[in-house]
């Protein structure tokens, strides 16, 4: 019987305490913000959309290797010794035409692992976090600066050069060891994937 009344007293009392707390919070300013009107300030290190500065990219494929979800796809073509691709901002000489640099941002898990191995610091995570799209295909970001014709051009040139080199090599080999036939020639592809 005693417990019965104690229980009733406790229930009423704890309800009143709870009501006091919630009532007090009626007059506490809200901690949330009205999002599209007010935007949170992101810290310096915020990791959001990936961006690649193609001027600095040397096509080393480090980021592609580091990506745990394989959202980066890079293809490169060797440049001719006569081509001048310029240098990166860190002073490194570029040796490869980057003919494909696709990031499927829909697959990206924003881990940032691609950012660290980059030798020229050209791939980085920016502060842009609003990039929703109506079409999934729009998430395939294409960073290559070369036009289609240019890509075809460098590919053709590289293939030609490769062939030339191969022919030269074969000729040299044939000259050096005329007895043994060239067993295996490297296929004339310059494209890696």
């Amino acid at each position: 019987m005693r417990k019965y009344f104690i229980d009733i007293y406790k229930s009423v009392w704890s309800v009143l305490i709870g009501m006091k707390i919630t009532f007090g919070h009626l007059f506490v300013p809200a901690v949330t913000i009205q999002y599209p009107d007010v935007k949170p300030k992101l810290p310096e290190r915020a990791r959001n959309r990936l961006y690649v500065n193609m001027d600095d990219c040397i096509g080393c494929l480090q980021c592609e290797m580091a990506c745990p979800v394989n959202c980066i796809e890079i293809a490169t073509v060797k440049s001719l010794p006569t081509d001048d691709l310029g240098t990166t901002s860190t002073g490194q000489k570029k040796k490869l035409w980057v003919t494909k640099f696709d990031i499927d941002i829909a697959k990206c898990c924003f881990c940032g692992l691609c950012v660290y191995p980059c030798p020229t610091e050209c791939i980085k995570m920016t502060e842009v976090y609003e990039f929703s799209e109506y079409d999934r295909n729009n998430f395939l970001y294409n960073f290559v600066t070369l036009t289609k014709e240019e890509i075809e051009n460098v590919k053709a040139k590289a293939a030609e050069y490769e062939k030339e080199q191969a022919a030269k090599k074969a000729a040299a080999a044939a000259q050096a060891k005329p007895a043994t036939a060239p067993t295996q020639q490297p296929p004339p592809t310059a494209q890696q994937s």
Partner: protein
Amino acid sequence: MEQLLRNIFDNNIFVFTVTAILPLIWIVPYALVAIWLERKISAHMQDRLGPMRTGGWHGWSQTIADMLKLLQKEDIVPAAADKILFNLAPYIIFIAAYAAYAAIPFSSAYIGADINVGIFYIIAVTSLAVVGILMGGWASNNKWSLFGAMRAAAQIVSYEIPSVLAVLAVVMIAGTLSLQEINNLQTGWFWNWYVFQKFPFIFVAFIIYFIAALAEVNRVPFDIPEAESELVAGYVTEYSGMKFAMFMFAEFVNMFAVSAIAATLFFGGWNSPFGDFLGGPIWGVFWFLSKGMVLVSIQMWLRWTLPRLRVDQLMYVSWKVLTPFAFACVIAVGLWMML
């Protein structure tokens, strides 16, 4: 009011129709505002902002937008449902909630039907809601809905008893079942209100009535028929679009109905708290509605504070706590009156 209309129009059917529709003038905007208010109260209690965008100031037209959205939604009837009962249930629940307004005195000049068993009629007619809930839950052909309906039936039936007993305590001192009469007996300053009579027994009766009313309208901490974390949404699980809105609407209408009854029985109804100051039929409406709204707000406040009970604890509260206390109140009031 009825007399006035009859004098002007001299057509019984027309007059009855008008008096029947009159409460809707209050109910519809009330429901819209109450839903918005509930969101805002919850938001501010939780340090949030709540709806802010729709319609300028603090998102005042959010509920209207939601109404329009629900109207456009597809009306899904499950293939395995009992279609007739499924479609009928929301209307029955709404009718049960709305029918109570016929006998609620909004002001000294306006009451839908001043029947001399007013309170009895209201208690009888609000119980009809349980039929609608059972119909909806059963017809949905969903186990969660059925659970919700069964819980609701058990809950509403058992909470009728303490609430009726609490009302009985008031009826005993008033000596009448007519709500208009009960209001007239509480005229004057606020200490004439029944809640302060025979202190503290009627006050306890009011608490009992209020708790029981919370259970009857399925509000937290007694919202187990639609407990979203257990039963998904209870008996409304399978409803969508406008039918769901009807359930929602009926719930808010019911909330005001029970608050209005509490205001009438315990807080002087349309009486001004300050004697004749701001009295009269027009101000009466104001006092009545604001008393009702305060009680509705308290229901909301409780909802955003408390966890919910378990079904057996709910029964415990009804049968082992509220009912004995209500009996004690009735007996005490009776003894007091004999003295």
